[in-house]
């Protein structure tokens, strides 16, 4: 008798906890459908279009001097902006997590500003400041320094849009970890730098790497802000995303989609790295917690 009632209890529990099968299938189907339609199909189109005229056309459009220059510039921009954003992110997170000061919440809001401002506005800001008619433009042109429609402008615009990535990742992490381990290191005779490299950095390394990865993806893929300040000079100020647009506007579909395929590959590589990072981080945690 008691066995029967226990059984009926279990079935009733099952019924209340799980939805009917058709709900499950509809939801899963809907999700897969949306992902396929809006994510996978475009990706496939990029590849199909890129290889529409065969492998030779694809490879020759990628080895075209303009395309190569665009790739080089994109790498160069990432090489400058990612370290700068990392240094900024770490120092901002340090300041916010460690010190109490007036206007701290305002600073946190300001760090988020690039996320809420349209990238085109970000580009325009720099045109208004450094452009020929801008505030500082005349002074710079007098001294023969070109910022707008040149590489420095692209760097500035990219810095603006990638600013928050590392800081955003580190601030909650460092606030959660707290200050005690660093105080312990100092009391044991470690210098500030030793404390930073031996205690602070290892504790936040996974978050930091994650932030750097996202920052890199954005730095290489940014279009809007860079488009405004770059001037689209072929072989000089065209980054890869700009190269894609310029080629497309000139009906060079293979060239355009070949460039796009590279950016798509970057996205895939980023995702793979991110997954590996998360996996490594979990392994790390498991290793330290296994009793």
């Amino acid at each position, binding site marked *: 008798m008691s066995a029967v009632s226990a059984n009926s209890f279990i079935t009733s529990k099952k019924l209340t906890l799980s939805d009917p099968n058709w709900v499950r299938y509809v939801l899963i189907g809907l999700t897969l459908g949306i992902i396929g339609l809006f994510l996978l199909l475009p990706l496939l189109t990029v590849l199909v279009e890129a290889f529409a005229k065969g492998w030779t056309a694809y490879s020759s459009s990628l080895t075209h001097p303009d395309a190569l220059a665009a790739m080089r510039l994109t790498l160069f921009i990432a090489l400058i902006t990612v370290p700068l954003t990392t240094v900024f992110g770490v120092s901002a997170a340090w300041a916010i997590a460690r010190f109490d000061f007036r206007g701290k919440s305002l600073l946190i809001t300001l760090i988020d500003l690039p996320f809420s401002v349209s990238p085109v506005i970000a580009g325009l800001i720099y045109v208004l400041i450094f452009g020929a008619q801008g505030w500082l433009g005349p002074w710079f042109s007098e001294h023969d320094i070109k910022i707008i429609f040149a590489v420095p402008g692209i760097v500035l615009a990219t810095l603006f849009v990638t600013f928050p990535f590392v800081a955003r990742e580190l601030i909650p992490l460092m606030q959660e970890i707290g200050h*005690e*381990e660093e*105080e*312990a*290191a*100092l*009391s*044991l*005779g*470690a*210098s500030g730098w*030793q404390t930073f490299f*031996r*205690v602070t950095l*290892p*504790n936040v390394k996974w978050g930091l790497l994650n932030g750097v990865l996202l920052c890199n993806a954005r730095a290489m893929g940014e279009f809007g802000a860079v488009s405004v300040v770059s001037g689209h000079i072929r072989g000089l100020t065209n980054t890869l995303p700009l190269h894609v647009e310029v080629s497309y506007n000139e009906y060079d579909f293979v060239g355009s989609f070949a460039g796009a395929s590279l950016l798509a590959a970057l996205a895939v590589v980023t995702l793979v790295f991110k997954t590996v990072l998360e996996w490594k981080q979990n392994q790390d945690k498991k*290793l*330290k*917690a*296994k*009793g």
Partner: protein
Amino acid sequence: MSISVNHISKHFGSFSALDNISLDIPEGELVALLGPSGCGKTTLLRIIAGLEQADQGDVFLKGDKVTDKPVKNRQIGFVFQHYALFRHMTVFENVAFGLRVKPRSERPGEAIIHKKVHDLLGLVQLDWLHDRYPDQLSGGQRQRIALARALAVEPSVLLLDEPFGALDAGVRKDLRQWLRNLHHDLNVTSIFVTHDQEEAMEVASQVVVLNHGRIEQQGAPGDIYDHPANAFVSRFIGQTNVFNLEEHDSDWLQAAGLPTAQHYGKIAHVRPHDIVIEKSRADSDAFVTLKDWQHLGALIRIELVKNGSAASVYAEMPNDQFRRLHLNKGDKVDLRIRHAHWFH
């Protein structure tokens, strides 16, 4: 003097955490900074360590003025309430940390580090855990590792911030005894912060009682218990019955054996073991009613109520003595006060 603190004051905004504190601690003592939470005891410890800066006053360690020295140059060992072990390092690396970050000229070789770390892990009886990570240890183990780590740099003073505060009652009791023994063997001048008066009395050779950022009393545990300097110390250390002459009938206290004439306007503090109860004689004026009692092991704690009063009076007496009185709840008993401290 091993540790001297001269006229230290510290404010956090408008809150005065420490108010003109001066304190001398001789070589080799194990001192408890005792007080309720918010009394400034942790702040004082952190100022001595150099983790916090005082607004005014100076700190001396072994005669050297260290007020402006950064923490890393003060040669202190600091043990945190929540251990603060480096979570990404093994137990061995945690203990070795202080040796590895020494300037190259002073840094010992790998073989010496190895030996020293294993010696220290042996001292805290946890050598078998040397390759574990902090997450894999229990609270008591972590705190002992934290202590070994602090001792690795051979500190001239050891500072412990509520070292047992985050531990279970049983572990806490073991570690107290262990710390006392360890201090006896090492003889490093040590200060520990606690809000638990029992812990302070049990472990420390000297107790400093703090309240509202001031030192209320400093002395050996027995002295502080037997001769409290003021009403706060008397209430904070051990149990106390408070008799206000205005609330309690002066005649009743006289009948209980407490002369009140020369103490007009003062308050009597009476320890529970200074109250004696006997079966009531018919002619006594100092009778009370036995309300309840609790077994505290060797002692019985007796709750008494004076007729016409809601406040309870507590007495304590040995188990066997109480049994011989054959008392029941509701019995009338006579009360006699052997000794009282008088405070304003």
